[in-house]
């Protein structure tokens, strides 16, 4: 059990009572919850990942699913081979430019609500292979990423930790109101344009809708 369930994040939508009062009620055997909380609790504990391994990190992903680390303790053991049945895409490994259109297409085929974990240095930024001509420098150029797990490859425990972070994020999502979750809002895109193979590179090389790099600061010259 993750500690997220033992110590739930406060939900303002859960009514007018405070957490302490709710805890008090729970001690008396009265479980107070809101629909939103119940819905998020259910979703966060049955995340079905897409069975989709790219490279080295995929082996650690499989290791996380085997007996020793047992991702089933978090309800995420059902790896679906079809994107239509999956909630979570674990981009586990180097995304090459040749593979990038397929990854985006798989993402587009997944139904909402869907989440993406970039597992390992390669998926986040191209990692050790970022100097390569055929390596995409981060999957977040084309699809939005929720959790980044650095490491090369991350230990299975690190993947579980990332999964728990994602569960926390899901449990904190709102279904209504101005800051409602992305998947509840029809104006938010859920499918992204698939890049095509160009003569020298992918076209386009990034999706400006998705990719928001930090603003670089300039500072005094080096050396």
């Amino acid at each position, binding site marked *: 059990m993750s500690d997220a369930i033992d110590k739930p994040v406060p939900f303002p939508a859960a009514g007018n009572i405070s957490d302490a009062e709710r805890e008090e009620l729970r001690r008396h055997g009265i479980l107070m919850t809101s629909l939103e909380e119940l819905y998020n609790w259910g979703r966060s504990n049955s995340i079905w990942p897409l069975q989709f391994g790219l490279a080295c990190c995929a082996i650690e992903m499989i290791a996380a699913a085997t007996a*020793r680390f047992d991702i089933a303790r978090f309800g995420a053991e059902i790896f679906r081979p079809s994107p239509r049945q999956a909630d979570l895409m674990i981009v586990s490994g180097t995304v090459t430019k040749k593979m990038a259109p397929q990854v985006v297409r798989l993402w587009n085929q997944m139904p909402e609500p869907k989440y993406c974990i970039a597992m390992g*240095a390669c998926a986040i930024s191209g990692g*050790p292979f970022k100097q390569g001509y055929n390596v995409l420098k981060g999957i977040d150029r084309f699809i939005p990423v929720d959790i980044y797990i650095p490491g*090369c490859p991350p230990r299975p425990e690190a993947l579980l930790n990332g999964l728990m972070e994602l569960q926390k994020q899901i449990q904190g999502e709102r279904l209504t109101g101005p800051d409602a979750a992305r998947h509840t809002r029809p104006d938010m895109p859920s499918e992204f344009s698939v890049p095509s193979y160009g003569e020298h590179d992918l076209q386009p090389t990034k999706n400006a809708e998705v990719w928001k790099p930090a603003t670089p600061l300039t500072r005094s010259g080096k*050396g």
Partner: protein
Amino acid sequence: MLGSGIIKGLAVTAKNFVGSYFVPERMVTEQYPEDRPKLPENYRSFPLLVSETAEDPMGTLRCVACQICEKECPPQCIYIEKSKDKKPDATGKMQLYPVVFAIDTSVCMSCGLCAELCPFDSIKMDQVFEVAATNRFAGLLLNREQLAKSNAYYHSIRPVEAAEVDARLAADRQAAEAKAKAAAAAKAAAAAAKAAAPAAQPAPAPVAEAPKPPSPAA
């Protein structure tokens, strides 16, 4: 008999299923968030910078900004800017120090070459692996304040290696002190002989063994 092979196989799985409740060697699942994994001493995740004390990590960084790690890092995830002035390090030598020392853990491949090649025992590999972040830039780019960890922490994660390093550094320091003393004595003798030499600035410290920092990459 047809099917006997399958039945034998099922017997094995049944044995393992029952055994997974009673036989310790078949109980393999680690209850991860509650039970911490037992990391071996050699385990490496991301680099850290060793400072002598926890109170003043920036003042006592061992790093002298020689930029060897920056050059040798295979994925080039280290960024260093040298200081323009020098300040005394833990042993009292005047050394350069890194004004900026950043490691992009979103690129780092945890190979450990930086720690292996650092001649000052300054950069070492940490064992923290729970570093999942929601923002690639703010969460995964570590600057020198975040990278600096005290020597005590280094001892706590790698006791054997840290003890070795400390012994080596202490020996170096002693040798340096002895050398400095000898040099000072020689200088005093020379000064006494000349008798007129003005007491110049403090001796530029015995920097004989400090390797020459390579020229910046740019």
